[in-house]
Structures are given as C-alpha cells and as structure tokens.
C-alpha cells in the first residue's frame, strides 16, 4: 500500500497553486497520488478543458432568457448534438431543504445563499462536470451570476459570495439578457398573478407591497448584473428585441463554438 499523502502541507511549504485547469480542483482527491501543493489564494472558476460546452443564460425574471434557452435547446437537438438542460435550484438531494426553508420563510440572506450554493454544487459534481467530460452541450438556466446578483442584493459580501462559488467551472458562453426593469415587470404581470416571497425580496422588508418590493429588489439585482458584464465578460443580448432576432443572435454566437463539438449520431 502506498503511503497516505495529505493535501495540506505546513504553511511554509505552500508555494504553487493547484492546477485547476482541468476542473480537477473538486475532482478526485489524490490521497494516494503525488503531493498536491495547496493553493495560496482562492482560485476561481477554472476554464474546463473537457470536450463538452457549457452555455448559460442569465438575466432578471421576465427577461425572456428561459424562452431563448428552450429555443436554443430545440435547435441543437435538431442538429443532433447531445444536449442536456440543467435548471437552477433543481438538485434532487437539496431541493427539499430549499423548499422547506422557503415555505417556512426561515431563510436568511446567508442560508439562502448557502442552500443555493449546495444545490449548485450537487448539480456541478454529479451532472454538469461528468456531462462536460462526456462531451455534452450543457445548457444552464441561471448559473453562478444569479447567485452573485441575488445574494449581494440581499446584503451578502461580494467577495464572500464569489469565493463560495470558486468550485464552479467557467461557462463557454455566459449570455446575459438585458432588459429594463419596467419591461420585465409588465411581462411578469401579464404572465402570472402575484410575486413570490423570495423573488420579490419580501424577506428584506424593503416594502410591504409585493410589486414595489419586487421593483426595489430586482432593481438592485439589475445593477449587480450590469457591474458583472465587464467583470466576467458576459455576452449581452438586448432582450427588448423580437424573440426571433435574439434567437438568431444566440444561435450565431453558439455556432462559433460548435465546430469541434461532438455530435450525437442519433440517426442510423
């Protein structure tokens, strides 16, 4: 049996940053392998070198991002790519806890942030990473930028939230569907009745009126998104344009990343 090698070394020996280029920072722990130097600073969002592609859509509620992603999904399927869709807040291990917290209104800004990070971690570990390794096109409706925008709007520290998601892989294309607040609100008002408690930021006590609270909270989120465009190089789509025009832009951008992507041979 080979000797046990600890990941962590005495502080004096910490030199090189661990290579996370392969997304392996959270991968198998090399207990029996060679000594892995511990990292000296938190490393964030490694660029994965897997054969798959990770395409994410971001934007406030009512920006139309889900519609666009679903149209992209159908298009990619029609071109015989292996496409998998992953939704925010959908981990089978974690969603019951999130549901409990929301239903009983027991989530604080910190636990709201952590339970969503837990959900995202489960999807990353068990679904997104293995699928990227297998060469799939992974489509995510909301990604880490949603957490950055919402959690900071709830008062969490910007740096803390960014560290929290350090294990995430960087998307191939992070689309941001930019829409003015009033447009989003009128779309939501047409589409459904009432605003949800946490989506409207009613936990923050900004206003007793749901719509007013939604307006204030989503306004904060919007300004976080705006600041993230240069910070993370988000690909901005004007979400006030007709759906078809937006979709043509999206497909155009996606297709430039598909040249070497693996196709599924579904047809005989």
């Amino acid at each position: 049996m080979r000797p046990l090698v600890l990941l962590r070394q005495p502080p004096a020996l910490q030199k090189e940053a661990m290579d996370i280029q392969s997304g392996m920072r959270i991968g198998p722990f090399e207990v029996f392998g060679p000594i892995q130097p511990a990292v000296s600073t938190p490393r964030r969002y490694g660029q994965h070198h897997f054969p798959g592609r990770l395409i994410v859509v971001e934007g406030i509620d009512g920006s139309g991002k889900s519609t666009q992603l679903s149209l992209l999904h159908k298009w990619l399927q029609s071109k015989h790519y292996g496409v998998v869709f992953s939704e925010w807040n959908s981990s089978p291990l974690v969603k019951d806890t999130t549901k409990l917290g929301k239903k009983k209104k027991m989530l604080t800004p910190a636990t709201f942030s952590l339970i969503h990070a837990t959900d995202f971690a489960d999807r990353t570990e068990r679904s997104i990473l293995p699928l990227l390794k297998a060469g799939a096109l992974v489509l995510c409706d909301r990604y880490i930028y949603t957490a950055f925008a919402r959690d900071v709007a709830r008062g969490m520290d910007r740096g803390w939230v960014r560290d929290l998601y350090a294990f995430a892989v960087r998307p191939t294309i992070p689309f941001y569907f930019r829409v003015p607040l009033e447009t989003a609100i009128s779309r939501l008002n047409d589409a459904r009745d009432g605003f949800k408690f946490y989506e409207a930021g009613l936990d923050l006590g900004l206003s007793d009126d749901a719509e007013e609270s939604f307006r204030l909270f989503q306004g904060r989120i919007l300004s976080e998104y705006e600041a993230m465009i240069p910070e993370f190089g988000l690909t901005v789509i004007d979400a006030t344009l007709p759906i078809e025009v937006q979709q043509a832009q999206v497909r155009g951008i996606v297709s430039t990343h598909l040249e070497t992507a693996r196709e599924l041979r579904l047809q005989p």
Partner: protein
Amino acid sequence: MRETYGKLLPGMRTADLAGKLIVIEGTDGAGRTTQMNLLKPWLEEQGHAVLDTGMTRSVLAGEGIRRAKEGNNLGRVTQSLFYATDFIDRLENEITPALRAGFVVLTDRYVYSLMARAIVRGMDPHWIRSIYSLALKPDAVFYLRLSIDELIPRVVFSRGFDYWESGMDLFPGHDVYESFRNYQAALLTEFDCLGEEFGFQTIDATQSAESVFAQLKAGISQILEAHPEPQAHAAARAMNRTAASVPLAPSATENQRRRFERELLGAIRAGFTGDLLPVGAVPLHAGANGNGHGNGKGNGHSRHSG
C-alpha cells in the same frame, strides 16, 4: 466585543453578545458526547443557562443532510456546503441569540471539524476558510486528542464501521479498515494543523472520562470567572431590561430556573430575541409549563399566572 473570523453576517450585531461560546472538538470516539453530558448539568448547577448544540441539529438542514447521507451519493463540495448551511442556520438562530441572552453556549464541534473534513476531502483550505469567515470566534476551544491507534478500538469496537466515519466516500472499493485508518489519520493531522492555527487547548483524551472532565471544568471556570455573575441573571435582564430586578436565580428554586431556561430556549429556537419579549414575561410561576412555546406564536410567552 465579540469578533468573527473576518466577515459579518448581514444585520449581525456583535456588540451585545454577552454569553460565552465554548467549543468541544475532537475526532470520532474522543468522548465529546460523554463530556457534553457531564458539562451541561455542572454548568447549570452553578447557575449558568446552557444552550448545547452540535452538527446537523439545525431546523433548516439537519434532516436534509441525514437524508442525503443515506444515499451514499453525496459529493464532496455538496457535503461541505450542506454542513455550512446547517452551521450558519444554527449560528443565526440558536448560537447568536443565546449569546445575546447571556447563555453559556456549549457546542459539540464547531467550524474546525467542518474545515478538517472538507480539507481531507480535497477542498481548497482557503475556500473553506472563506465560507466560515462568518463564524464567531469562540471563547475557548477544547480539543480532545487521541492518537490513531487509540481511536480505532474506541470507535470500531463500540459501533463498528460507519460509511462516512470511515471516509468510504474518499476510498470507494477499499478495505473498510484501511479506509477508516487512512481517513481518521488524515483528520487527526489536519486537526493538529488547525489546533496551532486557532489556538486549541489540547486535552489528552486517553485519560479517564473523570480526569478529562476535571480538566475541562478547570478550563471553563477560568473563562467564566471573568464574569462571576450568574448567567441566568444576565439572561433575565436581556429579556426584560426595564425590570432588571426580577429575582431570578438566587431565590428561584432549581425547577423554576430550569423551566425558565427551557422557555427561553424555546423562545430562542422559535426565533425570538430577548428584545421582543414583553415586559413581565419571565415565567417564574410554578403553574406555567414549557409547552406551546416553540410554536412561533409571540403570545405564548406573555402568559402570567398572577
């Protein structure tokens, strides 16, 4: 003034956290539970109100973690974050309000165990420290230390090999004994590193339970002597600032005091802080009982039996 490890939770006030936060750390089999069970009545005998807490006891995430661990398919990052959720829920809803009310908070494991487990699972040490930068610095950490050879019979002979205690998620397919040994040895090494970094007071856990208890009592007494006033008194004041002369601990009988603590704990767990309780609400009366106080209804606390 109590400090955190670097970051403050939104809306967190740290100026008035008058209680004491005492951590018992140690690996599996070090006798933490035994000591917790001895310490609580000892502290109460001395007139201190005690909140005891420990891993996965949060209302929010405790059950979710237990369910997730049943399946053996809980990933390492997910596991670390699930435990962080549990910890922060207890920090915000139990530990902090209890400290504000002047309790001695006795916690079976704290962020150090969570860090050690995450780090031996390959998590970036800076990442896990960043998450727990929200934690309050305790008044003392007592580390019950065992060597790997002493630990094995204690754990294995009493309850056999547990999947997670054996680190089987790290060593799938390995012999369970080898896995247990490797995992627990890695944890012990990590604890030693953390102990230096965070100033643990190490207690040799190979001694008899009585002897460990005696050392813990001595260590804890030192911390509490800084505030000789019985904590229950401070708690009463925190609850009822305009009636600071509520004759509580000295004249109240033991049963009344315990009942009061139970009710205050119920109030804390239901999300109330002392500030919210109405004046005169301290239920000192023999007729009052603790039922119906954990239900989140404010009026449950204002019962008088005049």
